C-alpha cells in the first residue's frame, strides 16, 4: 500500500511543481489536476529512458522528484484571488457534486466487473506493462505478439509498470489507480480551467456534461488509453489558451501534445494539427519555439521507441497509393462513417453533451470576448477529427467493424476538449 501511494504521489508532486515553476499565477486546483496527468507522463518517460539507457529504473524519476521538492521550497507569488460564489454557482456546484458521486460509483462498479480492464487493456496496455515491469521488458516488442500492437506507445504501460516495480507484484490496483487518475484529472482540469478562464457556472456546467456522459466514465474505468489521450488533448488546449497571459505555458502545451503521442498513435494528429494551426496563425507562429521546446524531448523518446523497438504499424504497412485512392473514392465508406457518427451522437453515447451544449448556447447571451482562442481550439479539434476520419477511411480492416469498434473511442478522445471549446466560445 505504501509503495502504491509512493508510485502515485511522486508523479503528482513532480507535475504540480513543474506547473508551479512555469506558471505560479494559475490557481492551485488547476495546477493539481493538470499536474496529475503531466506528472504521470513525466514519470512514464523517466522509467522508459532509464530502461533504455540501462540505468536503475527509478534513477531519473528520483532526480526529477528531488528537483520538484527543491522548487517547492522556493518562495512563490500569491495565487489569484477567486470571485465570490453566485447563487447559480452554488446551485450548479451542488448539481455537479451529486453527478460526480454517481460517476465515481459507476467507475468503481465498472472496474470491479473487469479488474484487468477491457479488451484493449488486457491485450495491449496492461499486457505491455507486465513486460516493462520485468528485466525481460524488450520481449514485449516481438513479432510473435503482433496482435498486441507492439508499436503502440508506452505512457500507460510504463506508468503502470513503475508501480509494479515498486510493489514487486502485479497488483490490479496499479491499472485501476492509473485509470482513476486520468478519468478524474480530466474532469477536474475541465472544470477548473473553465472556472479560471470564464465563470464557475460554465466550469460546473461543462463538468456536469462530462461526468453525466456514462460512456466516458465507463471507458475510463475500462483502462483503455482513450481517456488519457483526452486528458492530454484538453491540457494542450488549456495551456495554449492560458499561454496568452503566461507565455511559459507554451512549453507545457508542447509537452502535453507530446504526451498525447506517447500515449497513443492518434496523438500524432494533435501534433500535426498544432503545427498546422501555428503555421496558419501569426500569433502562434511566434510562440512555436516555446511549444517545440516542450514537445521535442517527448517526441525524441517516442521516435527512439518507434525506430528501435516498435514493430511496423498496421495502418502504415502494406498499402500502396492506388489502394489508398481506391479506399478514398468508395462512397460507401464515407456513408458508413457518417452513419456511425449519427448513431453515436443522436442515438446514444454522446447525446447528453451535445444536447447540453446546444441548450447552454440557446439559453445564454452570445457575448464573447475570447472568440480568437475558441476559434483556435475549434480549428485544432477540426483538424484532429479530419485526421481520425481519414484513418478510418483508409483502414485495412472491414470498415463497418472499424467504425463500430473505434469511432466512439475516438470521440471520447475529443470530448473534454470539445466541451472546453464550446464553453470558451460562449464566455462573456
Amino acid at each position, binding site marked *: 500500500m505504501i509503495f502504491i501511494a509512493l508510485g502515485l504521489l511522486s508523479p503528482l508532486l513532480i507535475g504540480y511543481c513543474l506547473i508551479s515553476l512555469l506558471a505560479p499565477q494559475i490557481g492551485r486546483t488547476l495546477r493539481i489536476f493538470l499536474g496529475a496527468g503531466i506528472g504521470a507522463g513525466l514519470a512514464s518517460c523517466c522509467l522508459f529512458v532509464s530502461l533504455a539507457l540501462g540505468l536503475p529504473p527509478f534513477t531519473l524519476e528520483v532526480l526529477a522528484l528531488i528537483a520538484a521538492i527543491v522548487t517547492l521550497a522556493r518562495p512563490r507569488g500569491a495565487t489569484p484571488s477567486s470571485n465570490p460564489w453566485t447563487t447559480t454557482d452554488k446551485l450548479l456546484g451542488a*448539481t455537479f457534486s451529486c453527478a460526480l458521486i454517481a460517476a465515481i460509483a459507476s467507475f468503481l462498479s465498472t472496474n470491479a466487473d473487469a479488474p484487468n480492464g477491457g479488451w484493449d487493456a488486457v491485450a495491449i496496455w496492461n*499486457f505491455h506493462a507486465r*513486460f516493462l515491469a520485468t528485466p*525481460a521488458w524488450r520481449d514485449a516488442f516481438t513479432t510473435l505478439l503482433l496482435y498486441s500492437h507492439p508499436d503502440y506507445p508506452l505512457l500507460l504501460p510504463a506508468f503502470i509498470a513503475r508501480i509494479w516495480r515498486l510493489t514487486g507484484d502485479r497488483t490490479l490496483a496499479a491499472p485501476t489507480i492509473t485509470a482513476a487518475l486520468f478519468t478524474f484529472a480530466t474532469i477536474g482540469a475541465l472544470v477548473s480551467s473553465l472556472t479560471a478562464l470564464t465563470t464557475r457556472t460554465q466550469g460546473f456546467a461543462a463538468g456536469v456534461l462530462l461526468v453525466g456522459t456514462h460512456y466516458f466514465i465507463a471507458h475510463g474505468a475500462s483502462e483503455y488509453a482513450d481517456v488519457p489521450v483526452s486528458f492530454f488533448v484538453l491540457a494542450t488546449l488549456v495551456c495554449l489558451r492560458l499561454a496568452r497571459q503566461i507565455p511559459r505555458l507554451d512549453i507545457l502545451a508542447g509537452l502535453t501534445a507530446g504526451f498525447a503521442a506517447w500515449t497513443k498513435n492518434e496523438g500524432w494528429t494533435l501534433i500535426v494539427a498544432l503545427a498546422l494551426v501555428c503555421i496558419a496563425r501569426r500569433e502562434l507562429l511566434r510562440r512555436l519555439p516555446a511549444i517545440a521546446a516542450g514537445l521535442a524531448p517527448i517526441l525524441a523518446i517516442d521516435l527512439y521507441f518507434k525506430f528501435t523497438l516498435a514493430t511496423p504499424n498496421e495502418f502504415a504497412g502494406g498499402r500502396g497509393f492506388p489502394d489508398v485512392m481506391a479506399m478514398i473514392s468508395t462512397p460507401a465508406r464515407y456513408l458508413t462513417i457518417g452513419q456511425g457518427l449519427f448513431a453515436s451522437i443522436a442515438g446514444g453515447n454522446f447525446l447528453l453533451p451535445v444536447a447540453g451544449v446546444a441548450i447552454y448556447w440557446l439559453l445564454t447571451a452570445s457575448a464573447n470576448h475570447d472568440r480568437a482562442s475558441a476559434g483556435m481550439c475549434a480549428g485544432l479539434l477540426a483538424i484532429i477529427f479530419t485526421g481520425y476520419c481519414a484513418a478510418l477511411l483508409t483502414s485495412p480492416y472491414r470498415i463497418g467493424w472499424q467504425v463500430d469498434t473505434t469511432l466512439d473511442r475516438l470521440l471520447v478522445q475529443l470530448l473534454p476538449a470539445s466541451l472546453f471549446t464550446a464553453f470558451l466560445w460562449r464566455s462573456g
Partner: protein
Amino acid sequence: MRLQSLRVSSCFAVLAAIGTWQNLHSVDFSASDGDAVSQNERRFTAIRSALSDRLGSHHGQIGYVSDLDPAGAPGATARFRAQYSLAPFVFAPAQPYALLALDPQFSKYRHPGAIPSANPEWIVGDFSAAGIAIPEGLVMVRDFGKGVVLLRRRPK
C-alpha cells in the same frame, strides 16, 4: 439575468439527473465469481511459477496448445488470455495467425512480419472441459487442474 441563471441551473439539473441515472443504472456491486480474464488468471497462477522453476527464469519462449482452433475467435481469445496471464513468457507462434477483422478485399495487408519458427521444450496445455487431449510428441509433466497442464516435448 436572474431568469437566465435560473433557466441554466434548471436545465443542467435535469441533464445531471439524466447523466446520474445513466451512471447509477450500471452500478452493480453484487459479488460475482469474477470476469473471464480474472478466472483465467487464477487458472494459470500455479503453472506460471512452475514454468519459472523449470526454465530457471521468469521469461522466455514457451509453447501453447489447446483443443480450440487457433484460427477461430474462441481459440484466439483463449490463447490471448493465456498469453496475458503468463507474460512475460512469450508463446511460440500458432498457425494460422488470427487477425479476424481484416477486410478480405484488402487481405494482402496482413502483417508481413516474419514469424520465426520455434520448438520450445516446455508447452502450456489449455484445454476446455471436454477433456485433455495431449498432442503427439508431447508428454504431460503436471496437471494443474481446470484444463491447465504442463507438457514437455518428447526427445527425438
